């Protein structure tokens, strides 16, 4: 006779074992490792909150200190591999298998542990995809999460950096798993309940705020004239003609330049109210001038950004805030918003090949994908029309019957033809392919595929891939904006001129832009201090960005 509540029974046993180290739900930090050794079982699927920004750093240290003889061969399922402790688990044999999404700061070490056989790789995912699997085949047995504060019943306040937590807890808590939270303080009453205490089994008072990576602060002082030129080309050659109101900006200096050009260059073009009104976006400090100038109706965020808390509180018309007034972010919903409710994604990459596939993989680093594959994909489930979506669809398939012709989401790669270290953006063969061959992967880690990509923007101009009718045209369109890279110099000049005549390629001059006008004086803010002043002193930049 089969038993049908084995997982519930097992969970209750773990909680029982853990309770020996707790007073009610509260666990002293000194008992953390003992708690984890009691609750976590070898072979468990464990989600340790390594979000894009927020890190459950105390719990990571605790897990990395367990005895590998007692707890070993864990299967780690988490968004971000960010802290050294996340990889110490594999070094020590506490963890064996890994499914993740992003590993920016640890990308070199991930690669070396993979090559060294210390990590058994499940797969690299995009965020929303990993979240989806939390509910199907990667449900965590134990979730180690981070919150700002808790009350004695275990109700949690996750605050501006709520990020992945509701999703992780939903899957773990309702999937018969155990949830352990680290908090900065225990209070009588939390400012708002982000996670109900029903779903939280143990709370560790770390006595300090969880660690947050400041990822989205781009110093305007570092924006170059070339980046300003690409921004002008994007605004005039894409945002304006397609009338893009709902969009997501990938992180980078090119998009930061676009944000800072809206109140100046965009204003001169009369575009306020016509573009950039609704964003799926983290609270980029570089958005402050555009918000202040009245460009933006609403922003939903994946996470927060260090120093922006007071500004967000004072701009609740624009941002999603709770009854307590602070930001509520939610990565799963923001990723969904970016997929279905936005008409454009624009971001940067490290390599683009002759098909238009793009990737950020290099030979010695495995940085993963983050949100880009999702944001930079065309959602075929979409049904509601919008002008940009229909226009792009018509460009891709001008002869098809209009009533059966789906629209297309604009997916734009923007960058200078030569990147950091003067490495060319355009290559014949992606490093991702070489990595796949080396590691025997079934699929090369491509960030955004060619058939999703609609445009490429460089300082040489825009390539509109929607208007290309065959692989040849596509290749030459790409070569035609690849500047002086080997790929660019290998272009068929006659064919590129024909493509230009058909507006498949548009040069700055074709858009009425003189590259010599791309000047830093166009930026609405030219320094972090300018951003702070534009916010009326509400934005408090982190120390590393100050020069006062």
């Amino acid at each position, binding site marked *: 006779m089969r038993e049908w509540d084995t997982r519930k029974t097992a969970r209750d046993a773990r909680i029982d074992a853990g309770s020996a180290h707790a007073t009610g739900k509260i666990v002293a930090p000194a008992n953390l490792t003992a708690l984890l050794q009691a609750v976590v079982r070898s072979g468990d699927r464990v989600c340790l909150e390594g979000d894009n920004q927020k890190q459950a750093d105390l719990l990571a240290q605790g897990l990395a200190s367990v005895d590998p003889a007692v707890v070993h061969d864990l299967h780690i399922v988490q968004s971000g591999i960010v802290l050294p402790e996340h990889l110490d688990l594999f070094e020590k044999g506490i963890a064996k298998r890994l499914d993740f999404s992003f590993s920016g700061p640890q990308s070199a070490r991930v690669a070396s542990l993979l090559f060294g056989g210390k990590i058994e790789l499940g797969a690299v995912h995009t965020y929303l995809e990993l979240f989806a699997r939390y509910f199907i085949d990667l449900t965590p047995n134990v979730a180690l999460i981070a919150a700002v504060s808790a009350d004695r019943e275990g109700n949690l306040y996750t605050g501006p950096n709520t990020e992945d937590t509701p999703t992780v807890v939903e899957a773990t808590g309702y999937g018969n798993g155990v949830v352990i939270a680290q908090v900065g303080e225990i209070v009588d009453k939390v400012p708002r309940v982000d996670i109900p205490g029903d779903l939280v089994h143990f709370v560790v008072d770390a006595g300090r705020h969880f660690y947050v990576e400041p990822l989205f602060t781009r110093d305007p002082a570092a924006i*170059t*004239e*070339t980046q300003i030129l690409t921004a002008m080309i994007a605004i005039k050659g894409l945002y304006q003609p397609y009338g893009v109101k709902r969009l997501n900006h990938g992180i980078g200096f090119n998009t930061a330049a676009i944000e800072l050009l809206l109140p100046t260059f965009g204003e001169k073009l009369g575009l306020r109210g016509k573009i950039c009104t609704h964003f799926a976006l983290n609270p980029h400090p570089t958005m402050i001038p555009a918000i202040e100038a009245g460009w933006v109706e609403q922003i939903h965020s994946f996470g927060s950004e260090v120093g922006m808390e007071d500004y967000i509180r004072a701009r609740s018309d624009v941002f999603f805030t709770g009854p307590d007034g602070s930001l509520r972010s939610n990565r799963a919903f923001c990723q969904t918003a970016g997929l279905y409710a936005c008409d454009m994604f624009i971001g940067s990459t490290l390599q683009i090949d002759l098909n238009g596939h793009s990737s950020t993989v290099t030979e010695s680093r495995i940085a993963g994908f983050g949100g880009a594959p999702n944001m930079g994909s065309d959602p075929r489930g979409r049904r509601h029309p919008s002008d940009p979506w229909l226009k792009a669809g018509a460009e891709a398939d001008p002869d098809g019957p209009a009533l059966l012709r789906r629209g297309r989401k604009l997916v734009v790669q923007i960058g*200078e*033809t*030569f990147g950091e270290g*003067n490495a060319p953006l355009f290559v014949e063969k992606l490093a991702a392919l070489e990595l796949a061959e080396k590691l025997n992967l079934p699929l090369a880690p491509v960030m955004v595929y060619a058939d999703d990509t609609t445009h490429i923007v460089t*300082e*040489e101009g825009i390539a509109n891939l929607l208007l290309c009718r065959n692989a040849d045209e596509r290749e030459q369109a790409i070569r035609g904006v690849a*500047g*002086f890279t080997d790929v660019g*110099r290998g272009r068929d000049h006659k064919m590129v001129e024909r493509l230009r005549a058909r507006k498949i390629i548009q040069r700055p001059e074709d858009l009425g832009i003189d*590259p*010599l006008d791309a000047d830093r004086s166009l930026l609405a803010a030219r320094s972090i201090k300018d951003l702070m002043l534009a916010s009326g002193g509400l934005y408090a930049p982190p120390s590393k960005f100050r020069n006062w």
Partner: protein
Amino acid sequence: MEILRFDLEAPRPASGTRQLALVGVVASGNLEILLERAGPSNRCSIEISTAARGFRALWEAVTADFVAHRAAGGLHISINDGGARPDTVALRLAQGVRLIEETAP
């Protein structure tokens, strides 16, 4: 340092009366360009001093593009390169021509 010299045909002469112009700064990723009036009005001579060796073909492509699209005739151009990218080089060359074509004060 690698020294590169090009003597190119320049279809359009640089106008204006300024005798010299200077753009840019020698810093990482940047370059300094000194433009002086010299030589026949249909030729442009360019001398480049750079620590990044082995990029002759790239400099050839950038300078060829420059003389084809900008008013570069009658100029001697001297460059001190701090490892600038080709798009920065092209931008500074264009800025240099615009500056030397300005009316002298």
